């Protein structure tokens, strides 16, 4: 194993020159406050950006930019690194010209401006959003090198907006007949998705706020539907219309995509829920451990069905497991950060995490998933992820079993 950059290794006779010699930042005057009225990360963080996976799609306006999970901490995704999935590019919609229409099985077809919506009773809640296709490249075999590309269509923010239920009640929605909600976006794709209304009515939010500020343009500014636990494509961006209906709509992105092909050639349609899943983010694929010794192994767990109850970690490819520490708060349908101690002895190891949610559901192995769903579902791969640590300290993406 290489041995670089730890304090133990840079000792001159008297000590470390960066301590013994005064540094520029101790001996000169720094920059003014508000030098950046809206701040940006340190120049030393430039490597951690959203990135496309080459060859995933053919055009960058119908594509994905993945969140660099390999370098993130905690559960909140900074807005600048929130993953992006666009079907027809993104727009900076003029909020003065944005409208929300509610129609269908309602007493009153209504129109709301942003002025109107932002006066309504609002809630703020932390939820994860995961694309249904996250980890989709790995159904058949290992395909991509790092956690940014295996799991990076995943983010978690505090969303603020008016509860969907408040809005629908105000419009006199017929919730007996109206079991389906069509959500439509204001962009060129006019993204439409059928929402399971009774299932999400208590939790869905017509949201404008994201981590304290307005939604980012690439994430739907000024309005998006937040559907906790449900795959990201249903969190319709630039939300312009909600229609209450009595049957599902079979829109393009639920008739041709975002449904799960089974081995017999039938496709499960309207698959929506993101089942319980977890992944170790450090150390993870493509990283290089510099030394043997103690490490904090850290990762994320989440469930579209509720709260994370427990996360187990294995260092031997799933033979033996230990219970990880969960960071607080542990919230329903939000990311949960876990951590566990590890002393790396320099021998090869295979790291895995396995999440359990409060329904008792245990995250499956890729083999278990394949036994039921085959290898061509694209969507909803929530298998246990394995990272191999080689004796050279390099971590790589593998599948076991």
């Amino acid at each position, binding site marked *: 194993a290489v041995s670089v950059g730890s304090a133990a290794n840079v000792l001159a006779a008297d000590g470390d020159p960066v301590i013994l010699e005064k540094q520029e930042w101790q001996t000169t005057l720094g920059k003014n406050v508000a030098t950046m009225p809206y701040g940006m990360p340190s120049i030393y963080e430039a490597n951690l950006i959203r990135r496309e996976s080459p060859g995933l799609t053919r055009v960058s306006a119908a594509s994905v930019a993945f969140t660099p999970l390999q370098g993130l901490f905690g559960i909140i995704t900074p807005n600048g690194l929130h993953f992006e999935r666009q079907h027809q590019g993104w727009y900076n919609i003029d909020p003065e010209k944005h409208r929300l229409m509610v129609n269908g099985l309602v007493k009153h077809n209504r129109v*709301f401006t942003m002025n109107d919506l932002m*006066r309504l009773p609002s809630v703020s809640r932390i939820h994860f959003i995961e694309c249904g296709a996250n980890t989709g490249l790995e159904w058949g075999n290992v395909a991509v090198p790092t956690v940014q590309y295996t799991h990076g269509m995943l983010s978690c923010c505090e969303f603020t907006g008016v509860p969907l239920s408040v809005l629908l009640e105000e419009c006199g929605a017929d919730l007996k007949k109206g079991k389906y909600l069509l959500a439509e976006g204001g962009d060129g794709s006019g993204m439409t998705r059928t929402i399971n209304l009774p299932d999400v009515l208590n939790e869905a939010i017509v949201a404008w706020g994201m981590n304290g500020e307005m939604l980012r343009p690439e994430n739907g500014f000024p309005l998006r539907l937040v559907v906790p636990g449900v795959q990201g494509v249903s969190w319709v961006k630039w939300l312009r219309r909600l229609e209450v209906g009595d049957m599902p709509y079979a829109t393009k992105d639920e008739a041709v995509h975002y449904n799960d092909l089974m081995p017999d050639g039938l496709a499960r349609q309207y698959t929506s829920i993101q089942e319980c899943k977890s992944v170790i983010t450090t150390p993870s694929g493509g990283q290089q451990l510099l030394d043997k010794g103690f490490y904090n192994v850290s990762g994320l767990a989440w469930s579209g069905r509720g709260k994370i109850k427990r996360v187990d970690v294995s260092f031997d490819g799933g033979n033996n497991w230990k219970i990880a520490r969960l960071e607080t708060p542990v919230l329903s349908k939000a990311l949960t950060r876990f951590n566990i101690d590890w002393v790396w002895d320099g021998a090869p190891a295979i790291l895995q995490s396995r999440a359990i949610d409060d329904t008792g559901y245990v995250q499956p192995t890729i083999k278990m998933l394949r036994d039921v769903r085959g290898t061509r579902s694209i969507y909803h791969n929530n298998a246990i992820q394995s990272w191999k640590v080689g004796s050279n300290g390099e971590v790589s993406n593998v599948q076991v079993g």
Partner: protein
Amino acid sequence: QNASSRFPGIGRDATSAEVAAWDIDVRPDFKGLPKGSGSVDKGQELWESKCSVCHGTFGESNEIFTPIIGGTTTDDIKTGRVASLADRKQPQRTTIMKVATVSSLWDYIYRAMPWNAPRSLSADDTYALVAYLLSMAEVVPDDYVLSNSNIAEVQKRMPNRNGMLLKHGLWNAKGSPDTHATACMTNCVQFVQIGSELPDYARNAHGNIAEQNRQYGPFRGADSTKPPLA
């Protein structure tokens, strides 16, 4: 205005012109489908002038998006199940292989295509384009005129119309999962075997991983332009 409103002064009733302007979705039962019609011939003309640059003359192009047409048979039209979805003989899954509902095609083309000029097609244009696409898949004959009156008939010939499974655990949060893992803690796997590893060509296919991690701290990126360290 809604008399029973909890929120006086907020929002207003939509006009019927407004609802008409925005409520353009077309459901599988064809609710929302505007009247109109279009022939395969007209569809072909439109396709060649507005669509083929991205999707190929026969909807077969893989340049900008997955092919739209291909992989279905006249047999599929009878069964309503696309055989190539099960037998895996088709390398790619085209749109026509997957789509069960003709409304989905109509709705999407009308709302979102051409990709660089959405909402520029008339209803008649859309009938024509759908007719042309379906003719290439042999769902309708080459002289067909698709319209709001005959589209329900066409639905009955969609190759994958019986291809959808609605019974599964992933529509409701309370739905039943299809895996039943248990949380074994010790001696769970007799023999841990690596089934799949990152292929060599994929090591650097996403660019140099060293440049996608911090250059300080304990978790650097491996230099993927070089082979792994010895």
